[in-house]
């Protein structure tokens, strides 16, 4: 048998249970989730987000307290929202939403969702490219760049995109294995890079750290043109930066493999290593860069990490970007694949990888990452509220779960109304109330809850309150 035939057979044998609950013998142990979360959230984005807190003039006290509170709220959201729903249904977000909202709504939602995932994965491929380009003296992008600045940049991005797509084509197992291996090493590099440059900031012992942190690293003064970040900005950002994954339920795709809903707490490894230590570490590196470059506009995580930790630092940026881009591509593949279940997962991932790689050529994707991350969570949030209510609350109110499946409908208007009203409400708060995008998720979620309950009550006819889905007992 030729190697190409063998490869095709292996790819076609990848079964990710897109439209069936995960069978009991395929459930994974907690180690798999700890590795996946640690790898996914100690990632390329951390090389961008940490510096942005410096740029937005966060104080050291606000940063530490805001991150602790926000991260705890995020972990609770992963366990009590995503974990509970994922273990009860053991389906992907996409299939569950199809049963609730109907296939026409899901088709539209999946296209939006896949596009968002592609942009996120694309920004991570771009971050990796800043490190891969170092030996080739690649001109690095700056904060104001929108379009690719050289042919070399495009070639570099395409090389990384090809490798990332190829790995993602083999499904969750390959991604999980790679993340498991890379995660402990990555966090060591983050810490080591930051600790190693402390003497250049005037820190020569642990007792020097806090005074320098308050006066030099996070001195509370935003860079020119940047808004001022308070405790509340940091807390809400830490909570909602992955809103699409926990409250928005995208991580049902991962946690449906969990033996217990409490595995949602394994997200603690991701948020406290990635969204605490790594953000602080990358903030330290960027602060030093600003000091030594006298406020350069160049924004390239690769060279900054290389300068601090040598080749290991540059390799860390590549792998950090890769371990984020891979599961994100995988999720995007699932989103598109659910449009037509007959499409092979690997072919869909190949297509998604191409779109992602083209998007990654534009540096604007990295420079606007904070706003993009907040927007991405906000757009997915109302559907997460819908799924949570449909699984746990509607049956208690005497209303039917999985209404579209029950009525064999292609579109459940209650879901469409909920999504539209929630997002219009958030947009109104932003435009007319002047509320920043980072704070919109919380009021938006409550609006989604109220609208979905009222709309379901109004729309559901007197149907037999029995879901056609057989409840799982594991």
């Amino acid at each position: 048998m030729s190697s190409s035939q063998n490869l095709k057979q292996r790819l076609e044998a990848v079964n990710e249970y897109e439209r069936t609950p995960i069978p009991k013998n395929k459930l994974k142990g907690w180690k798999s989730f700890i590795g996946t979360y640690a790898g996914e959230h100690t990632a390329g984005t951390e090389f961008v987000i940490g510096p942005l807190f410096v740029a937005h003039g966060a104080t050291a006290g606000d940063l530490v307290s805001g991150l602790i509170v926000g991260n705890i709220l995020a972990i609770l959201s992963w366990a009590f929202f995503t974990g509970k729903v994922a273990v009860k249904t053991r389906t992907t977000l996409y299939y569950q939403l199809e049963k609730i909202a109907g296939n026409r709504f899901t088709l539209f939602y999946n296209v939006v969702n896949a596009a968002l995932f592609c942009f996120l994965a694309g920004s991570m491929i771009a971050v990796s490219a800043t490190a891969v380009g170092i030996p080739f003296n690649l001109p690095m992008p700056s904060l104001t760049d929108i379009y690719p600045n050289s042919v070399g940049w495009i070639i570099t991005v395409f090389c990384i995109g090809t490798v990332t797509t190829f790995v993602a084509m083999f499904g969750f197992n390959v991604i999980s294995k790679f993340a498991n291996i890379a995660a402990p090493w990555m966090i060591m590099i983050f810490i080591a890079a930051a600790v190693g440059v402390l003497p250049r900031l005037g820190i020569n012992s642990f007792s020097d750290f806090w005074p320098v942190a308050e006066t030099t690293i996070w001195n509370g003064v935003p860079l020119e043109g940047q808004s001022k970040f308070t405790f509340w900005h940091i807390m809400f950002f830490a909570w909602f930066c992955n809103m699409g994954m926990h409250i928005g339920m995208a991580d049902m795709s991962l946690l449906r493999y969990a033996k217990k809903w409490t595995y949602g707490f394994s997200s603690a490894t991701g948020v406290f290593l990635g969204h605490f230590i790594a953000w602080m570490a990358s903030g330290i590196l960027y602060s030093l860069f600003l000091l030594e470059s006298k406020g350069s506009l160049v924004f390239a995580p690769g060279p900054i990490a290389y300068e601090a930790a040598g080749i290991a630092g540059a390799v860390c940026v590549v792998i950090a970007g890769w371990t984020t881009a891979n599961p994100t591509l995988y999720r995007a593949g699932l989103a598109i694949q659910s449009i037509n279940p007959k499409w092979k997962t690997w072919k869909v991932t190949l297509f998604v990888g191409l779109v992602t790689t083209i998007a990654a050529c534009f540096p604007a994707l990295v420079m606007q990452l904070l706003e993009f991350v907040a927007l991405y969570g906000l757009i997915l949030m109302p559907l997460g509220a819908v799924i949570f209510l449909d699984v746990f609350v509607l049956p208690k109110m005497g209303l039917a779960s999985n209404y579209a499946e029950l009525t064999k409908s292609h579109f459940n208007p209650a879901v469409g109304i909920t999504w539209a009203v929630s997002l219009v409400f958030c947009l109104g708060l932003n435009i007319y109330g002047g509320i920043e995008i980072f704070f919109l998720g919380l009021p938006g979620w409550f609006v989604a809850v109220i609208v979905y309950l009222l709309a379901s009550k109004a729309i559901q006819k007197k149907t037999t309150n029995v879901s056609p889905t057989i409840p799982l007992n594991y």
Partner: protein
Amino acid sequence: MKSILKVISIAALALTLIPSFLVLKGSITPELSKTLMLIGTIVWFGTASFWMNKSEEEEVES
């Protein structure tokens, strides 16, 4: 064999982290620290892949 590999892997992680604290203390130069971090990186990826995912597969099978 697996235990030996685990010990080597953990030593590699330590080799990635500890030199930076020695730089902070002023005991070694940043350049030496970077070299040691690279060696730690190579050894980690060269050894960890032989035991980390095998543990997971055993857990799933059990």
